[in-house]
């Protein structure tokens, strides 16, 4: 019973987050300017403006407009892009594969480095590995993604002429943006894994196991890591969110034709339907990831009641 309630609360939170963000995007787009005036020619008469407003439903009250917006949004209908004249959601979905490709690649690099490093440094505080881990964590926190991207371009594209600086194509195109995007993730995952390893190795059951003379290897893999997995899943879930956020900057730097860059461009063109569709799409994806990690939790650790 408790379990079901807890799970329901988590799912409600995720749904709430999406609704909150949708309300923010909706209210602010309506407050910040009149979309109708963007759509009509500059020499249009006032009557034509009113006509366009009525056509867009802007003459009704805000709550009524939100209901129309929300019911449309539930069906994936965010209206037409002001810039392209095509359905906003279609335009957004067309750019998702590129973003997914980049995010997955970055996640792969990030975890491949961070997971072993975090565990190693957590097991051996103050070792060389720990120093490396601390350095990466600090570096990842302090380095702006756009600057790292630019530095990589300067080194590998301009100076060494090894890799393409922008666009999407073969595997070569993926390397630089992937590296730039992975650094943040690498830093935070290393950091949290290290902390959770240190925490676990302090537990009584580890001391007890050690006292029983269990080998270091068995201790690590059978006892510590099994429990550390819970922390890892949380981190991975949380970081996927900021990874998705990071694609916005990375895609702009590398002219990667993904969703993040598309949203930024749409903001500059004041193409609100696309911004709404894009932001809400990302929010839903992140909410789904968060809920999934919450569901995986109890499978890994029987002590956790969701």
């Amino acid at each position, binding site marked *: 019973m408790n379990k079901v309630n807890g799970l329901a609360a988590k799912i409600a939170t995720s749904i709430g987050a999406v609704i909150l963000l949708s309300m923010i995007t909706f209210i602010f787009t309506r407050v910040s300017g009149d979309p109708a005036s963007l759509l009509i020619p500059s020499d249009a008469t006032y009557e034509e403006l009113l006509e366009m407003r009525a056509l867009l439903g802007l003459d009704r009250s805000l709550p009524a407009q939100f209901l129309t917006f929300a019911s449309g949004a539930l069906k994936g209908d965010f209206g037409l892009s002001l810039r392209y004249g095509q359905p906003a959601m279609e335009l957004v979905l067309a750019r998702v594969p590129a973003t997914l490709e980049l995010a997955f690649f970055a996640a792969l690099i990030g975890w491949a480095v961070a997971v072993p490093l975090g565990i190693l440094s957590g097991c051996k505080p103050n070792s060389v590995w720990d120093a490396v881990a601390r350095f990466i964590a600090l570096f990842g926190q302090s380095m702006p993604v756009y600057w790292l991207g*630019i530095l990589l371009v300067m080194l590998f594209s301009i100076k060494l002429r090894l890799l393409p600086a922008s666009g999407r194509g073969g595997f070569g195109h993926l390397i630089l943006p992937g590296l730039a995007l992975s650094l943040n993730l690498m830093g935070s995952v290393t950091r949290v894994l290290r902390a959770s390893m240190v925490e676990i190795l302090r537990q009584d059951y580890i001391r007890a196991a050690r006292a029983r003379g269990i080998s270091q290897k068995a201790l690590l893999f059978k006892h510590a890591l099994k429990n550390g997995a819970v922390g890892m899943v949380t981190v991975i879930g949380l970081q996927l969110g900021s990874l998705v956020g990071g694609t916005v900057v990375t895609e702009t730097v590398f002219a990667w034709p993904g969703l993040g860059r598309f949203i930024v461009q749409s903001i500059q063109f004041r193409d609100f339907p696309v911004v709404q569709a894009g932001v809400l799409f990302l929010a839903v994806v992140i909410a789904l990831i968060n809920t999934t990690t919450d569901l995986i939790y109890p499978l890994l650790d029987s002590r956790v009641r969701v």
Partner: protein
Amino acid sequence: MAIVERDLTKNLPLSKTAAPSKSSSQRQSLGGFGVKLAFAVILATLLAAVFAPILAVSDPYRQSLVARLKAPIFVGGSGPHILGTDALGRDIASRLIYGARLSLYVSVTGALGACLIGTTLGLVAGRYGGWVERILLGIINMQLSIPFILLAITLVAVTKPGVTNIVFILIATGWAGYARVIRAETLKLNEAGFVESAEAIGQKEHLILWKHYLPNLLPQIIVLASMDIAKFIVLESSLSFLGLGVEPSIPTWGSMAAEGREYLATHWWLTTLPGLAVFSVCLALNTIGDWLRERLDPRSTVRG
């Protein structure tokens, strides 16, 4: 195995109050130089920001077609522009100094605002519980599940670029982190002996909060704030880089880096210098944050 033994000593309940264990004092002496350097960097940046009008050799806004894209002296340039000029002939050193002003102003105000709101709400939720806590927790969880930059972009998209808006966005995205940590710490303090004693002798509520809760929450607050300022500097510069930051006329590190991108192949310093400014200031702040965390909170070595 030696490490393991050291960890065991830390595990004793006594070590909560005892002096920092051997390992962390070793680390502190090792990190001593780095921390001093970090303080020096922050102090220099602060001074530069405060005395910008005096320090900047030339007007950061003045354009000069004759003096376009002059090289900094370390790549063979000469003349009054120590760090060269940008594509409009504006002095880069002066723009960097004014950029520091904006960066620090925005991030410190943002961190202060987020800290005030987050601490107050976290304290109220942790101390009094009930429906306030439940509602607050719901909002915190909601907000924490939306990535920082996504929320910022949404807000920027629909408001106009500007300093006040950026500060507001930083506060709006940052308060939840404080509220969560402060609430958790407050819950621990609720059980503390000194709080119960204070209640037992009938001390007034606001005195309990002021004298018993706040001083004990302060270490957490300081650590969070130092990290948050760094996070905010990166966020502000990223938004400015994307053209979603403050008014384009104001020199910022992020917008300088963006403007220099067109000249990457020929004038690498245009983007490298502002990026270096962001990186070094944030590295310094995070180093100080890590150091403070170890100093102020001997219970934990590292926390995520």
